[in-house]
């Protein structure tokens, strides 16, 4: 069975996001009232698997996120 997977990896709450801060400042300089801008990482891929939940969870833990500094979430949908 083939699945379309999206994964979002976010820095944990309270951890400084230097890239987000710079982009947020740039938007503020353009006149927008932006606060607390963060830059999560977004992954999308197709996966051939009988156990997509287990495999995607494992991929997040083993490589896509660093559990010390990141949280992650994902969605899995069948490819039509």
């Amino acid at each position, binding site marked *: 069975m083939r699945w379309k997977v999206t994964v979002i990896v976010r820095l944990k709450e309270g*951890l400084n996001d*230097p890239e987000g801060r710079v982009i947020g400042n740039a938007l503020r300089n353009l006149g927008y009232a932006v606060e607390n801008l963060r830059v999560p990482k977004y992954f999308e891929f197709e996966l051939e698997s009988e156990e997509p939940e287990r495999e995607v969870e494992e991929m997040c833990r083993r490589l896509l996120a660093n559990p010390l500094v990141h949280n992650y979430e994902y969605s899995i949908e069948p490819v039509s």
Partner: protein
Amino acid sequence: MVRFAVVVFPGTNCDFETERAIRNAGGKAERVWYKANLKDFDGVVLPGGFSYADYLRAGAIAARQEIMEEVKEFAREGRPVLGICNGFQVLTEAGLLPGALRPNRIPRFLCRWVHLRVEDIQTPFTSLYEPGEVIRMPIAHAEGNYYVDDPSKARVVFQYSDEKGNVTEKANPNGSVLNIAAIASERGNVLGTMPHPERASDRFLGSEDGLRLFRSMVEWAKK
């Protein structure tokens, strides 16, 4: 003579300098491609560079390569494992050292000389320094902001300081917790350093302070 493997991943670029520094320190060094095996070596060094172009997170992809299982074995056996800059990032990503190296507080690449205070001379890499000594080495990194949830987990070896050895916020180039520049594993045989000792290993480079790190390592591996 003791032999060190200097592991080369795609994107590693400090391998020649590191090999030379180990030789100048009296050891034998050989650059080895990351597909090689390490069984004939006494120690392993992961040099600086940009393994896998620093994609995903610096060091993350190199840390999941098969050769790292052998490096873990080295660490378990108490043999010396040194990670410099990208090598330090690989060691934290592989779980051989606690914590993580995050993008610098000001998100840009930093390349300059820093002063470091030597905090721990009880490791195989620092036995030839004096406790509290101030040394000079260059840094060159975009992701050197050391983070650990519980700083008591990190065995601090070098801290960023001013030239007098004061560990101040101003002397912290990248935002590291407690000005941490280098840490060792609990047993001391795994060391990760963001500053580059190989770039301070010869007088013509501006400092020889880094050479003693390699000398300490070579002397210790001989025993």
